[in-house]
């Protein structure tokens, strides 16, 4: 079985600090990590590898520094790593990103593609399903459990108040939730081997059979118009009441504000 896991390198948002003077986000020196949902997807692939001797390739698109995320995946146990990097890919929205990844994937052999549900820096949850659309393969999102039965993948998909059990024939794509598993730790030996003995295959614009109209900023139909920090509203009020009194209290406040 051949599995390809798509990952994204993201800033570790738990390490983000505020500039004590200006109050703005300090990005300098923030470590980069594998996006948590993607890492769970990688762990799921590695568990299939442990069980069925699957071959696991990890694929990312990003700047040259994204090499570090792939080394981490290799240290965890991935068999091969591919980095899609080119200035022409820069500024991509989800359409251009998924087009570029799908173009690379279409030249590779796979039975199963796993992506994370969404990245913690963009939170769109679009790239995984879009890849499946580009490739014309089935997609199951929000996997909180995943197993292989014959030539099919059986996934428990998280839903608001319930779960769905879905089956798809391979080849297919699954997007993983970080609740799927606890990713393994890298061993020091694995880390050293990932840097010393392993290679990351680099693919650039020239290696892909894709139109310029589908990559990078030019191939991105969406634009960020403005980013801004939400203004802080007034502080909340904490009132300790039992459920009945609390309901009454809330209704009174809403009436005061003419909401009710």
């Amino acid at each position, binding site marked *: 079985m051949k599995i390809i896991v798509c990952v994204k390198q993201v800033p570790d948002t738990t390490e983000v600090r505020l500039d004590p003077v200006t109050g703005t986000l300090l990005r300098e020196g923030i470590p980069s990590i594998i996006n948590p949902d993607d890492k769970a997807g990688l762990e799921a692939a590695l568990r299939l590898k442990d069980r069925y001797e699957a071959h696991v390739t990890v694929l990312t698109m990003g700047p040259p520094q994204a090499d570090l995320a792939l080394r981490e995946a290799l*240290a965890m146990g991935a068999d091969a790593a591919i980095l899609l990097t080119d200035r022409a890919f820069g500024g991509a929205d989800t359409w251009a990103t998924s087009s570029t990844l799908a173009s690379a994937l279409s030249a590779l052999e796979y039975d199963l593609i796993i992506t994370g549900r969404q990245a913690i820096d963009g939170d769109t949850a679009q790239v995984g399903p879009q890849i499946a659309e580009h490739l014309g393969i089935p997609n199951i999102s929000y996997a909180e459990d995943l197993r292989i039965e014959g030539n099919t993948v059986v996934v428990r998909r998280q839903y608001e108040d319930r779960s769905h059990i879905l089956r798809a024939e391979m080849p297919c794509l699954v997007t993983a939730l970080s609740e799927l598993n606890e990713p393994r730790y*890298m061993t020091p030996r694995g*880390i050293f081997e990932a*840097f010393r003995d392993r290679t990351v295959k680099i693919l650039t614009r020239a290696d892909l059979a894709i139109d310029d109209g589908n990559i990078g900023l030019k191939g991105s139909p969406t634009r960020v118009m403005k980013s801004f920090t939400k203004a802080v509203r007034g502080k909340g009020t904490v009132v300790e009441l039992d459920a009945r009194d609390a309901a009454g209290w809330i209704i009174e406040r809403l009436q005061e504000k003419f909401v009710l």
Partner: protein
Amino acid sequence: MDFDLTREQDMIRREVRKFAESEITPVALELDATETFSPALTRKMGEIGLFGMFVPEAYDGQGLDYISYIIGVEEIARVDGSQAATIAAGNSLGIGPLYYFGTEEQKRRYLPPLCRGEALWGFGLTEPTAGSDAGGSKTTAVRDGEDWVLNGSKIFITNAACEMSLGVTVQAITGTREGGRPEYTCFLVEHGTRGFKAQPMHGKMMWRASNTAELYFDEVRVPGKNILGKRGDGFHQMLQTLDGGRLSIGAMGLGGAQGAYEMALKYARQRQQFGQAISKFQAVAFKLADCAMELECARNVLYKACWLKDRSRPFAKEAAMAKLYCSELMGRVANHAVQIHGGYGLMKDYHVERFYRDQKLLDIGEGTSEIQRLVISRYIGC
């Protein structure tokens, strides 16, 4: 000059830190309060490769440089002294002598389970009558045909009396050298050998979740092939082992100081008194500034000593300096950290209380602060 860690070392630090914070921090208070050594946690530390870090892969080690190992100990010590002690003693005192001085047969037999973290090995040096004065030791080994017969006892031996303990290296007097000085030889004694008894020691003030043993040897018979290296090498082996061990104690001091400092800084920024965070008061801020400065100095002196060792250059003087400076630094930082925490710092619900206690061992174990000063003073020609 290059003060940057390699990408590998940096990644090891981040991964061990994540492990320590997710697997050790949540159980540290409980294990300390109940004075419990956890085999499950020790095995987990083995699975992520914290044992046998500087041992080649051929013996199931990690095949790393010494500084990577030191970073590993430092990161564990940043959250808990007991677990760091299990790692530091396991590597420097258990695995180290077997790897550096053992015969090929001894290495093949013992190193793989120790490096995988499935078993632990002790280093029996200190005796009830022999601490700083190694000359006061009384444990003897007498030759009897092809065998040797050991009699005596050892005390304060880490990792030597738990369900994972596989055996110990025991230093014993095997004769008299020219000039009347005793001849020392180290023997490997497996648990289960007749006449060998290992008893856990309880009632410790510090490192309460690590395993500490008293060892008794009553007519313990071992074959000649259980001599570590050669007869008469015991003293030299002990000195070399302690030089390396000092770096790991230094790492425990540095990591513990770092952890106490971070807790104090975090608390000081949250704690409000007289209408503002106490970190804004110079009485507190200057303590934290001193801690930050000294941590920088300590890390540099310790890493430099490791750098020398990794290049096979003399490092004994620097190791003594690093051990002394880092362990005493942790004393100062833990003291400030408790002071900054005020009344809460005295409570067992707060980790700083444990750091304050755990530090005291560092002034005493693997050569007291006084002995380190003696070593340094001899190196500088006093």
